């Protein structure tokens, strides 16, 4: 009982009142304006298909892996896509290890819906043998630090990791053309996924009696807000999904205003992801040149 009290976010009355009263004059505690996004940085490590996102204090790691499996019977020539979330108690003491909490499930669903409903990843190209063998893509999202707005950060982590993921190339051969040969990456260059567009989630929080809208709420603002809405859009301004689970009711005009703002932010974030992926790809190809050119490495070593 006592331990549980120590683990929950203990916000003071002062903080709650201050966040609300400061917002009345368009001020936020971290010095942002209501429609400013926090600083976003995308880091790729050496391995393909992994990313680390930093959104203010929030940190999320995304990791994509692929596996050959039997397809679902109703979709014999489509690969599968699955999202797994990992909320470690290290990120926030209120997260319990073991069973996923309500927020963990909601987060997974939002990211999943954004990618699946908008058909962002071309699943048909993941088919190897119709009805027998397809690629199953698994996205693992690890929350490393919770500084608020985990949904947006996780979504960006998933998109960044998907953009850099490469699967080994497969060909069908053998005697009766039923044998699958998986070419190791040293023999044939692994293939990237076909991603049609990047659906970016943008979250809004509604705070106080006046339902003041803020974008990208922090951990403390999340403790105060009456409700939140996540809109998933791509760079063309097409709405892929909206999540508004309970909380305060919102006017239609406010939703439309949010969507307009979100489309600007989505375009902004998309370009950031694309730039990061591009520089990763350049670095990746440069790395390969070094590996196949011993004379160059010899020079380097000197």
């Amino acid at each position, binding site marked *: 009982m006592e331990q549980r009290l120590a683990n929950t976010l203990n916000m003071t009355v002062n*903080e*709650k009142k201050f966040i609300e009263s*400061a917002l009345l004059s368009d001020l936020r505690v971290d*010095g942002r304006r209501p429609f400013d996004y926090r600083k976003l940085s995308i880091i790729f490590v050496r391995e393909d298909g992994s990313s680390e996102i930093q959104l203010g204090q929030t940190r999320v790691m995304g990791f994509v892996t692929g596996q050959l499996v039997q397809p679902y019977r109703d979709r014999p020539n489509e690969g599968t896509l699955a999202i797994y979330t990992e909320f470690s108690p290290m990120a926030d003491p209120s997260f319990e290890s073991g069973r996923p909490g309500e927020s963990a499930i909601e987060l997974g669903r939002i990211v999943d819906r954004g990618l699946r409903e908008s058909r962002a990843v071309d699943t048909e190209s993941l088919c190897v043998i119709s009805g027998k063998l397809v690629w199953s893509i698994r996205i693992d999202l690890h929350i490393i630090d919770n500084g608020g707005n985990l949904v947006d950060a996780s979504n960006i982590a998933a998109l960044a990791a998907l953009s850099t993921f490469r699967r080994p190339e497969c060909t069908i051969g053998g005697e009766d053309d039923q044998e699958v040969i998986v070419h190791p990456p040293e023999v044939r260059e692994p293939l990237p996924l076909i991603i049609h567009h990047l659906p970016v989630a943008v979250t809004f929080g509604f705070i106080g009696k006046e339902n003041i809208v803020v974008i990208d709420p922090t951990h403390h603002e999340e403790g105060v807000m009456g409700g939140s809405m996540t809109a998933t859009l791509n760079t063309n301004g097409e709405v892929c999904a909206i999540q508004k689970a309970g909380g305060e009711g919102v006017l239609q005009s406010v939703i439309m205003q949010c969507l307009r703002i979100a489309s600007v932010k989505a375009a902004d974030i998309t370009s950031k992801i694309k730039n990061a992926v591009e520089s990763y790809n350049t670095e990746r190809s440069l790395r390969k040149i070094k590996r196949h050119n011993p004379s160059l490495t010899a020079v380097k070593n000197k």
Partner: protein
Amino acid sequence: MEAKPSSTSPSTFVDQLVVPGDVILDLSSMANQTIKLGGGLRQDGDSISVMKAGNLRFTKPNKYWVESSHKRYVPNAGDNVLGVVVDTKPENFLVDIKGPALAFLPVLAFEGGTRRNIPKFEVGTLLYVRVVNANTGMNPELSCMDANGKAAEYGVLKEGYMFESSTGLSRTLLSSPPYPVLEALGKKLSFEIAVGINGRFWVNASQSSTVILVGNAIQKSESLSLVQQKIYLEKLLKNIQ
């Protein structure tokens, strides 16, 4: 590891970085002396060794302790901290002071406190309190009185905003001579600040914008060098006027 000379004088380690395992004092060579040990030190037979990484501090005549910066706070008797009321019990208020366990604030630990006039604190009230007792394995005990039984500055903090910091930043904020950032901010702006050694500080001012500016400036200054702090503050304060 090199063997430490047996006549290690305390001055060699004082104000130096020490790591767990360092032996800072050899008691066998210091007869008839009393020393007091603070956090991060322990006695192993005849030697005093370090248990955590940090700077070794010494005050005359005989106090030794290790100082380091953490996000988490280990309660020590005599510390002034900022606590948040989490629950109310008939005998105690349960207060979160960022420590490993919730702290108890007895309902009678107020100036002139009697059973008749127990204060009413709702959950989430911010308090400036003193740690009276901190033993391992027990919940720390707090008090809203100074050693003489006076209210002094302790009690509820109204309005304002509580910012989180590291324990190291809290200590620099309280240091004397005053922290240059705080001094520079104080020359241009008028605000009220309460610093808890447990890595929390509370800022209040007549305008919300001042609270936000001061709070963020202090938080940001932690990762800046002295010169950077000066440049940052000059830029910041120029923008106000």
